[in-house]
């Protein structure tokens, strides 16, 4: 079984099983499947996943096909964390009754709309109740699935279809919600930010999170070339740039200790 103490090498990664497989219908160059792949490759625990409505859910389970090689469940937009709470509670009850002895880990995936906005209530509830699960938010900064509408993760000044930038209004007039900080404020054992460009760091965070009992939250930046109007091969470069420019500092919060790994150094500000 994996432990957080040792980082994974590329060689090990290449040998680990791909549990989010090819054949899904995400746009070429999308950040989200890279994030999911990295999260699932980081561990060899049996994983049960729940998914909020969004690009990831729609594109990975079209018709009778699925890209998930693990048990996976979707119910609606606002309740990935609630669905996972139910599954995890059932697992705990089974374990107590001796019906299952496997060490299973639970991961919920949601986009920023399904996490920051409509799914916030169920996420907050699940974290407060202390379910043993990891919630992974892939944050691409807007409702990309429905056509690039603003979300509370959309950064200040961004141009979306419901906060269009024009001569008078320069884009989204509000600042974005700092969800990782809010999740850390739930005093959960582990909350962190990661980026697929820093895969070693992300894998380490996932491994660390899964070895902690209780509710964990991981916020991952996930560039969307359709929404960001960037090139299809830019996702990794952009997520690296987001870290280097302090837009997306990589840090983890272990209960109350806030630790910055990489981010706003004076040197990186010059970029």
């Amino acid at each position, binding site marked *: 079984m994996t432990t957080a103490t040792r980082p994974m090498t590329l060689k090990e990664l290449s040998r680990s099983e791909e549990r989010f497989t090819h054949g899904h219908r995400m746009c070429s160059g999308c950040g989200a499947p890279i994030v999911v792949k990295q999260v699932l490759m980081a561990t060899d625990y049996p994983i049960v996943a729940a998914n909020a*409505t969004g690009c990831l859910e729609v594109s990975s389970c079209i*018709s*009778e096909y699925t890209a998930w090689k693990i048990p996976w469940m*979707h119910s*609606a*937009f*606002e309740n990935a964390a609630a669905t996972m709470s139910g599954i995890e509670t059932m697992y705990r009850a089974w374990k107590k009754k001796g019906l299952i002895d496997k060490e299973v880990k639970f991961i919920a995936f949601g986009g920023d*709309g399904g996490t*920051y*906005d*409509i799914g*916030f209530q169920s996420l907050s509830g699940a974290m407060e109740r202390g379910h043993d699960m990891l919630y992974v938010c892939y944050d691409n900064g807007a*409702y990309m*699935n*429905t*056509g690039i*509408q*603003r979300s*509370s993760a959309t950064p200040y000044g961004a141009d979306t*279809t*419901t*906060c*269009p930038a024009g001569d*008078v*209004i320069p884009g989204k007039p509000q600042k974005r919600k700092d969800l990782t900080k809010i999740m850390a404020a739930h005093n959960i054992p582990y909350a962190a930010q990661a980026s697929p460009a820093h895969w070693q760091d992300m894998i380490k965070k996932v491994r660390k999170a899964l070895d902690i009992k209780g509710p964990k939250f991981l916020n991952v930046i996930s560039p969307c070339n359709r929404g960001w109007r960037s090139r299809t091969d830019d996702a990794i470069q952009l997520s690296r740039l987001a870290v280097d420019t302090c837009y997306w500092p990589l840090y983890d919060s272990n209960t109350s200790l806030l630790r910055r790994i990489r981010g706003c150094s004076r040197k990186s500000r010059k970029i």
Partner: protein
Amino acid sequence: MQKILMKGNDALAEAAIEAGCRFYAGYPITPQNEVPEHMSRRMPEVNGIFIQAESELAAINMVFGASAVGARAMTSSSSPGISLKQEGISYLAGAELPAVIANIQRGGPGLGNISGSQADYFQAVKGGGHGDYRLLVYAPWTVQEMWDLTLRAFDKADEYRNPAMILSDGIVGQIMEPIVCTRYKRPKLPQKDWALTGCAGRKPNVVKSLFMGEGALEEHNLKLKEKYGRMKKTEVLYDSLYLDDAELIVAAYGIAARIASSAVRKLRKEGHKAGLFRPVTLFPFPEKKIADLCNSKRRFLTIEMNLGQMVEDVRLAVNGRAQVDFYGRPGGGVMTTEELYNVISNKIISGQNAMPLRHSPQKSQ
């Protein structure tokens, strides 16, 4: 007047602005995204307010708040989102607040799909949320009607102090057609003296749906019943085609009626006595007109894009005086003119029952 090419959803949004709606709260869901997108661009230009809420629940309750202070308020969504709004809609109806809610229906149940459907008929017409209430329900079949009925919905909502619903679908919402954007003329409407506009110099107003006193809620419900009764008397709208000598009357609304009308026209050209009856208001339902249409020679065929919902109201109106059959395509399945032509002509020629479903689920290769 000049015709302009417009998308159904854009026509709905622009018509709301034309009707004086200055408050819109919405949330993204396909296939209605053009409505909030249009509103986000246009509302600042007309000094109106556009809010993208954090959920459908928030959006409908923002409308509740805006309506309570007397604003012409609107929200829109598509089927799963309308399900989330049901609590708020029930509260609007309970507190007698006017509002316009657009449902650009998509396939269900559950997440369903994003193609046009008519499966929310029951939800829209029979209440939807909790409690004994009704919405004024308008069912447009063209982009032109998206415009016209939206103008009307705001007036009627204000007149009756009742939420009105535009029950459209993904197809009418997404198609583009040339329309005449008729100018809005405000009819004589009662003053909104119940609105919460600040009570300096007058008695405070109360807007509520909570009635705890002995018999108070029953009394309130009976008052609502009387209001729905008035709607039934005066607000019924319908449309028809070749009804006079029709032996088979196709009853359909919205996009299904649009497809059926082509089939009926084709059959008429061939000399078959087919007609079309299209309810424009689904509540109040044109039950009296349907009852009047019944005679010993006539049969009805209800065509819907669901498993049979409006057919129940047609049967209630017919009340056993004529045969009522049903043909439907559920789950976002769209019928073709040829398909309906075959269904209707089979019905006319042989009198055989319409097949309830044409397709068995196909395995994709």
